[in-house]
């Protein structure tokens, strides 16, 4: 991964080491107890996911968080269930303020799909994601969103972006 090697160029951890460190993820048993299908409210994941969509969640993911996949997780401060896309995973470098920060071995950077300008035009405010509450501990992730089963016109897989 490009950003991982650039982190090592800048005196950060050597490429690959973080991904080999043990990660504190919530156990599969805990995750299986969480919801496997969810309804979406609010608009920060437009256009990929609209408010009112019904989605299936896969808690059995072995390798994650994978960059580009959509995940359900508990928001760090409120513990409310939320949905965002993984923008960066453990050990990755993310732009922050005027510089960047390197995510820890058990942290993910979760962002909204919708652009601020679109939300503003729709009368909504800024998306609330890692830019607001910072890195999300991997153990707060519950599952990967993989399928939309309603509304009928938009049934289909939820793609992973690159």
């Amino acid at each position, binding site marked *: 991964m490009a950003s991982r090697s650039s982190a090592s160029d800048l005196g950060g951890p050597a490429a690959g080491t973080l991904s080999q460190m043990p990660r504190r993820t919530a156990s599969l048993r805990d995750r299986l107890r969480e919801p496997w299908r969810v309804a979406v409210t609010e608009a920060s994941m437009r256009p990929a996911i609209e408010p009112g969509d019904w*989605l299936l969640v896969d808690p059995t993911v072995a390798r994650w968080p994978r960059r580009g996949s959509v995940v359900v997780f508990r928001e760090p401060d409120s513990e409310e269930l939320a949905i965002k896309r993984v923008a960066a995973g453990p050990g990755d470098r993310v732009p922050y303020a005027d510089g960047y920060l390197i995510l820890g071995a058990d942290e993910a950077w979760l962002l909204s799909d919708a652009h601020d300008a679109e939300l503003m035009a729709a009368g909504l405010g800024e998306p609330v994601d890692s830019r607001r509450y910072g890195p999300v501990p991997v153990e707060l992730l519950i599952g990967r969103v993989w399928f939309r089963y309603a509304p009928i016109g938009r049934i289909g897989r939820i793609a992973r972006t690159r």
Partner: protein
Amino acid sequence: MSRFRRWLTPATIVRAHCDLPCGVYDPEQARIEAESCYRIVEKYAANEDATFRTRAIAIKEERAELVKHHLDVLWHDYFKPEHLEKVPNLHELFWNANKQVSKVKASTDLADAKKLLDQIDEIDAAWKATGGNEKTRVAGRPG
């Protein structure tokens, strides 16, 4: 069909969380709390009773905190970078007013509370200069 639909409906809701600002802003909110501080200082000076004075200080502290809150909301949420062209000293206005709130918390001098009112009036002028009155109040501001 309805039973089928019910069976399909997920029991859990996830938020694709974004802010939902009401878009209503007015420096008057901060000013009213600052006026409370002003009046409390007046009443404090006119009453020697220890219990009354203790209560007055505590309530002034609360009201001053609300001034800060309302100023911050106005600063962060209403004012946008483009407003800086019209009001180049915008950040200074808010910084000074917020610092003055801290001063009002610690002081029982009426002049400090008056200075805060004047500073909020400057912010009010900036809000009006950027069209705040027409844009953010439902039917314009009364008066």
